[in-house]
């Protein structure tokens, strides 16, 4: 009996400690539930309700919100058809986000490599230059791009002055404008993780590869890229996910005719007054982002093997 006494004490102490730990965690858990899960529940709930006449929702169950994501009924003959408006917007979002990721990678990779190969004392200076654009508000940077590419803007003005064109090129309000804006804004998000993994790259491996008569392209493909793959994946996710939900950039540079998902969702809560559809579209976007993150987790898990 005497031998088990300290044992039960220990169990009790353990239990107390566990309880205390949960109590201490409680505020964090409550905040997490209230701030993350709570609003999500509201969104899910709203997506199954009926849209109010002037915005808001009516508390009746309905599938209309979800049906509206992929189908559309003609207001005049009532025929149901595929929601080509939503699908074209969805496609534009995925396409532009993928292209943004690709261009950020093409531009970011050599940039990160360049910085990682500078002497240690200079690297911080180069990284500082990468982060400087973050000091300016996104909205202001986007308007600045508008100043560059508008019909009477600097780029068209310069090309006309050179005599290369005599009519301004329509760049504003096109997919190109949105792409340019997103590549510019999200590029640092690609450079930072790429640099982080390149900094740890063992450059003697590259020397060794050259000693073994590898061509520069083979060095890149067989030595550098496998070593920095986690950075490539992280950077791509960091660029792809916010691009998919981009709102401000397509809003300003797309001129309201080239919508992306973020704008379509906003439209449902504003002008279109269809909150259930907006909620269903938001959840669709959430699913897409989650899918992208799962791909990321899988890819980085494979890396560990």
């Amino acid at each position, binding site marked *: 009996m005497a031998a088990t006494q300290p044992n039960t004490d220990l169990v009790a102490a353990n239990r107390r400690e566990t309880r205390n730990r949960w109590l201490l965690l409680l505020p964090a858990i409550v905040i997490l539930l209230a701030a993350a899960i709570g609003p999500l529940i509201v969104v899910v709930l709203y997506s199954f309700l009926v849209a109010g006449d002037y915005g808001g929702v009516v508390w009746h169950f309905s599938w209309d919100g979800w049906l509206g994501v992929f189908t559309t009924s003609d207001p005049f003959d009532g025929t149901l058809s595929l929601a080509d408006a939503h699908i074209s917007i969805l496609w534009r979002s995925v396409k532009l986000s993928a292209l943004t990721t690709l261009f950020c990678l093409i531009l970011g990779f050599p940039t990160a490599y360049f910085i990682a190969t500078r002497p240690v004392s200079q690297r911080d200076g180069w990284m500082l230059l990468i982060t400087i654009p973050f000091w300016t508000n996104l909205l202001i940077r986007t308007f600045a791009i508008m100043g560059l590419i508008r019909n009477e803007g600097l780029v068209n003005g310069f090309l006309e002055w050179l005599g290369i064109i005599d009519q301004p090129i329509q760049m504003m309000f096109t997919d190109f404008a949105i792409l340019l804006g997103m590549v510019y804004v999200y590029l640092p998000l690609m450079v930072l993780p790429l640099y982080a993994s390149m900094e740890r790259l063992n450059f003697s491996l590259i020397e060794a590869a050259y000693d073994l008569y590898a061509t520069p392209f083979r060095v890149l493909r067989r030595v550098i890229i496998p070593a920095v793959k986690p950075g490539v994946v992280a950077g791509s996710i960091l660029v792809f996910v916010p691009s998919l939900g981009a709102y401000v950039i397509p809003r300003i540079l797309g001129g309201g005719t080239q919508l992306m998902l973020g704008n379509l969702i906003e439209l449902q809560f504003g002008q*279109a*007054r269809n909150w259930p559809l907006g909620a269903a579209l938001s959840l669709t976007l959430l699913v897409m982002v989650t899918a992208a993150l799962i791909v990321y987790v899988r890819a980085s898990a494979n890396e560990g093997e």
Partner: protein
Amino acid sequence: MKHLIASVAAVCLLAGPAFADGNLNIYNWGNYTPPDMIKKFEEKYNVKVTVTDYDSNDTALAKVEAGGHGFDIVVPAGIYVPIWIEKGLLLEARPDQMENFKNVDAKWANPNFDPGRHYTVPWQWGTVGVSVNRDVYKGDINTSSILFNPPDELKGKINIVPEMNDVMALAVHYVGGETCTNDMTVLKKVRDLLVAAKPNWVSMDYGTVEQLAQGDIAAGMNWNGSSFRSRLINPKLEYGFPQEGFPIFMDNAAILADAANVDNAKLFLNFIMDPENAAMISAYARYGNGIAGSDKFMPEDMKTAPEVNIPPELAKAGFAIETCSPDVMKIYTRIWTDLQK
């Protein structure tokens, strides 16, 4: 210690006059609130005024409905006023019993959207029409066909302000329908017209003053005051009143039901019905204001502006924009979604 108290007291005394007798938070359309008039109000009543912008009726409605906005005054378009009232968002402040109400132009003293003006005060009224850069297109501009069947010179250079009710009202009249019609053949024509016209539009955006002036767009649906302001930057811009019918709207200041500074808000409503102050609004945003006697305080260029003075031969084409029934609104919204591809 005594020294400290003395200096605190001194600071308080010095800072005293800087403390206002309260606050007033105004929620209004962008580019619509004259800073000089706000300054005058602040000085007269010793109130600190904060102005926040919105760009559409729906944005304002959604934000205020969500609650926790902290605004006292809002300026919705007339067709939205019944919605605001029905939803219980406005305070029945009885501006019709205020001292300066006698100045309200008889035309605007008893509007359909707020009978007897129990809730709202005229802010400005204007028309929906077309702005055209005369360097690009020289033909007749007093027609909605500029937007819906544009001449070749303007194709791909047109902006449509995405205020659904304005666009729909213009289009319904263009195909020969009545305001808020529920005639399906007319509405189908409207849908087909707009869907066919959309490829000719380069953008559907607010904030066109800059874009017109800078040449990003060569023409567009526009509000007359906004067109006026663009012309002041770029004299090549002219405003047309569509002969097929053009909507006339009025934006109205009202106090929100959950306003924190009701007394100051009431002072403000009364303040803007003073002709001199109403003239300041017009001088800034370039629309008419609905306050009789404000003309004599207006700048000279307001009195002769072609955007503000409707040509007599086109006056009969103007019609008051109205609040349509929810059924009609649903069809409007469906047509509108087809334009968002």
